[in-house]
């Protein structure tokens, strides 16, 4: 297992794609957070916005590059035939998937931490200019504040879980286009579709089951009580999705001819 982790790390280190995707995760996350922090305005006290959530908005873009990295790690190998070389060198297939998951988690946590810290900093600098001032009831965004710290740390974990969900889906699906479509559909189309459900009860249930909507509940700091799920419970839903995807991918990887 240690050798497999070392091998997977060496693979990622020796191709150009992963580095760019990780850098892209940081840049895109901070950029979108900065745009959100400077475009959403709070005109008066009690405007009802969640400043931390606005400051961490970029995670919704950063999750895409994290998902693409996961898909690249698996489908890139199937696309080139590399997977056969990998499985001849490492015939214990569960260990291969576990090693990929470990390396991916480590890299995503690192890039996610940088992205989230950058977003908090951008929010701290830009939000006051949009009316999120102490006078309107918004102290400067700071990781020293309990709920903000939870939202920030939760966002980093959210990115790591999205990566693992994508890794599981990619391993099960194998084809790059199909895996990308499935993951991006889960992340972006499902939340939109849920919003279009007319029945309120059904919408609430679907929201609770949707990985992106439920997972992002971890970012809520002011309206947590009115959300269909608490912050950690929401992240738990995403963790369940990631576990199920990895389990399915792992079982298929073990059973199938390569």
């Amino acid at each position, binding site marked *: 297992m*240690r*050798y*497999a982790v*070392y*091998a997977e*790390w*060496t*693979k990622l280190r*020796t*191709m*150009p*794609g992963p580095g760019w995707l990780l850098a892209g995760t940081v840049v895109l996350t901070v950029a979108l957070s900065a745009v959100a922090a400077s475009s959403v305005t709070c005109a008066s006290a009690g405007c009802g916005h969640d400043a931390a959530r606005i400051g961490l908005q970029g995670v919704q873009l950063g999750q895409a590059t994290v998902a693409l990295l996961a898909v690249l790690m698996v489908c*890139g*190998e199937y696309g*080139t*035939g*590399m*997977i*056969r*070389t*990998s*499985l*001849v*060198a*490492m*015939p*214990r297939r569960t260990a291969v998937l576990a090693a990929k998951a470990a390396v991916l988690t480590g890299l995503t946590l690192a890039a996610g931490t940088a992205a989230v810290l950058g977003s908090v900093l951008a929010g701290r600098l830009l939000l006051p200019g949009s009316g999120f001032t102490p006078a309107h009831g918004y102290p400067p965004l700071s990781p020293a504040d309990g709920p903000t710290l939870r939202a920030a740390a939760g966002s980093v974990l959210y990115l790591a879980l999205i990566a693992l969900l994508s890794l599981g889906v990619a391993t099960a699906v194998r084809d790059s286009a199909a895996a990308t479509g499935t993951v991006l559909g889960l992340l972006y189309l499902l939340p939109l579709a849920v919003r279009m459900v007319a029945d309120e009860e059904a919408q609430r249930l679907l929201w609770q089951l949707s990985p992106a909507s439920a997972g992002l509940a971890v970012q809520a700091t002011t309206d947590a009580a009115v959300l269909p799920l608490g912050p950690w419970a929401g992240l738990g839903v995403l963790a369940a999705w990631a576990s199920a995807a990895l389990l399915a991918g792992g079982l298929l990887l073990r059973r199938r*001819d*390569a």
Partner: protein
Amino acid sequence: MEATIEVSGLRKRFGATQALDGMSFTVRPGQVTGFVGPNGAGKSTTMRVVLGLDAADEGSALVGGRPYRSLRTPLRHVGALLDAGALQPSRTARDHLLWLARSQGLGAGRTDALLERVGLAAAAKRRAGGFSLGMRQRLGIAAALLGDPPMLMLDEPFNGLDPEGIVWIRGLLRSLAAEGRAVLVSSHLMSELQDTAGHLVVAGRGRVVADTSVADLIEAASGGQVTVRTTAREPAMSALAGAGATVTVTGRDMLTVAGMAAEHVVRLLGDRSVPFSEVSAHRATLEEAYLDLTRDAVDFRGAAR
């Protein structure tokens, strides 16, 4: 661990195709075993099953007495070249060997020496995606040698190599076997294995058609016939026929002798003081012997349907 590859009773069906139909053979250390047969005979599938890439429907494949998938650092036991194109094209040759080394708990030290050994030292920092098929084969062979394994399995390693490369790989295979390793080399062209393989496993339609030493195979295909050139045809004929051989006249001064080895013919004619200018055993080429075998196999299968 004994360096023996054992395949027994493998069966594997892909949809309507019975790819393996009771494939059984053993690859022993110290010699090159040629694995030959027409395209579709099941050579690659057998190797994929041995390496744990495909699961057999029935039968077992063991390397050094163990299933491949139970090995923790398999490349230290078995070196394999299956498909030279199975690599990430944007990675350099050296980095390709590097991650493989890491996966076996090996240091980076061997990679440069190996690239040197297979003639790719100058291309070490080039992306493998830009390599010709011949260069990829060389890189694949470097990967197979990475763990200094006692067993090697190479699928069609001659493909894409230039004549110089073919000579090189023949020498390499012989020296690996001489070091006591078990070497299995598949090919659909018998001539490539001439002078290299000591033992042959001939496959046809998913099973073994012949499992024999190269010497025996050629002997059998040659039919044990000896050609004699002599000016004293009559005394020669009576001497040979008297000793139990079947003699036919094939020319003015030519006889074909069956049922007696060439050395025996020489001794007999010498003892009787019968003059002769040439005694030669008819030697089939490996190619002829192989074509005989596979033709029979195909005819038999065709008739059985």
